[in-house]
């Protein structure tokens, strides 16, 4: 479904990613794990078109995304749950969700998808009229995921959904991700929380200082001695 090959990207004179290649097949959940500053967020921003690339290819369902602007990428079926949620803090929950179905293709389906997101996250229905910026971190994350789902994406990009949340809430967020998977979505997730994310994905890539180190199935990585030592603290 998604093929990234030889990707290079950066900011100014700084090269954040070089020679990154990965694939995500339809129906799969794939994680990219790695320490802070490895380039995980840059990878997500490049895939969703928010950041230009310097070299390499990103192909989604046969379409090269090279010159496709971000809003078109959403229409093609990639939705991005950005790092730190990035809700519209002064808009209500429902207005935030509405923005997720902004593209002309999604607008006619707004009502039915809103109903669907509310059935998925009943909490959001309770909070529909609340200003998004005043909710707790976990609720905001839920809203951000709901907003991304409003475009009915084929591929969901999730950038550190557990960042900045209390451990109990982190568990809840990972439960949410698990439910999204059960709904049949293809997910590419970026996480620092290696232990928990390996429990819920099929495969993972380890991103180290801008390039892919190890990769394999979740089970392989969990039993890899180097990974266990570096990321799982065992």
């Amino acid at each position, binding site marked *: 479904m998604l093929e990234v090959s030889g990707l290079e990207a950066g900011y100014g004179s700084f090269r954040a990613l070089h020679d990154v290649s990965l694939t995500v097949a339809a129906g799969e959940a794939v994680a990219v794990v790695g320490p802070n500053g490895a380039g995980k967020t840059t990878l997500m921003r490049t895939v*969703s078109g*928010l950041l230009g690339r310097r070299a390499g290819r990103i192909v989604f369902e046969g379409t090269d995304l090279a010159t496709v*602007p*971000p*809003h078109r990428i*959403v*229409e093609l079926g990639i*939705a*991005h749950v*950005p790092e730190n949620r*990035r*809700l*519209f*803090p*002064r*808009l209500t929950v429902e*207005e935030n969700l*509405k*923005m*997720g179905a*902004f*593209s002309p293709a*999604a*607008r006619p389906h707004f009502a039915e998808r809103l109903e669907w997101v509310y059935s998925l996250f009943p909490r959001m229905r309770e909070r529909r009229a609340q200003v998004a910026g005043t909710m707790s971190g976990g609720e905001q994350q839920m809203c951000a995921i709901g*907003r*991304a789902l409003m*475009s009915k994406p084929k591929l969901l990009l999730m950038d550190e959904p557990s960042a900045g949340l209390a451990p109990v809430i982190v568990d809840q967020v990972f439960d949410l991700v698990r439910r999204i998977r059960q709904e049949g979505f293809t997910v590419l997730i970026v996480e620092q929380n290696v232990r928990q994310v390996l429990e819920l994905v099929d495969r993972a890539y380890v991103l180290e200082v801008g390039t892919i180190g190890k990769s394999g199935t979740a089970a392989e990585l969990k039993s890899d001695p180097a990974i266990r030592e570096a990321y799982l603290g065992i």
Partner: protein
Amino acid sequence: MKIAWTLLGAALLLPPFLPISEYTLHILILVLLWAFVYTAWTIMGRFGLVSLGHGAFLGLGTYATALLWNHWGLTPWLGLPLGIATAVLVALVIGYPCSRFKVVGHYFALVTLALTEVVRLSIVAWRDVTGGSLGMTPDLVPANSLMALQFTRITWYWVALGVWAVGLVIWHRVDRSMTRSAMDAISDDETAAAAVGIDVTRQKLTVTIISAALTALGGGLIGQYQMYLNPETMAGVGVSLQIVFAAISGGMYVILGPTVGAVLTIVLQEFLRVLFGTHFIGAAPTIYGIMLILFIIFMPTGICGVVAERMRRKRA
């Protein structure tokens, strides 16, 4: 709410039938025409696109209409659309790169400020055609000529009232549109807006074009009404600041805010003119400046914003 609007509408239909002086009618016409321009500014200003370039759009609309009439005898019915088209073109040339390269906030204000001065200086420099800093007068025809868009004062009142009402309807329609939601989202977090699939550039250009076009139309009409154009009063930083001041003081988030701003600025202007005469030329801008600072600090949502908030609290 409906009753209040009906009463306001009815009250505004009265002046031509009342025994009021020509001067009062003149002030009312000015208020309505400028209120239209200020309303146009808030269509983009309320979303954080603080433009100091509206003096440019105003100047382009005014001068295009008058110059085409004087030099080629082209009726304002064609001159106005051409002036609007020019303003829209300029808005696109400035707006597109600003949006693509994320020129926002103060930088956006500075870019548009420069634009305004370019237009003013061009008018001043092109003296053979525009009359330069001495200004110009559209060629006069006998009163109430539809073709020349020159009317008696009473007819102008109806024109001004109609245009002002159309401005409010457009403001209201933008307020209820998806573009408004999108622009709210963009002014909250531009990157997030792009990430959820909003075409940021397109949305920004939409409100910019509407705003610039209406401003040019307002400028063209003000020129036709006053029958005198001057680069200092119809283009340049001075006018841009006057527009921003009126919109902010009246309240840019409420439909009647810019109109209240127009009442305030024009009454103030006339008061200062009578008070100082020609003795103290810099007085008006100085007082404007001080008041603008006070409004931004103590009343950022403007007079109407504060009133609306009070009413909401009373009801709750």
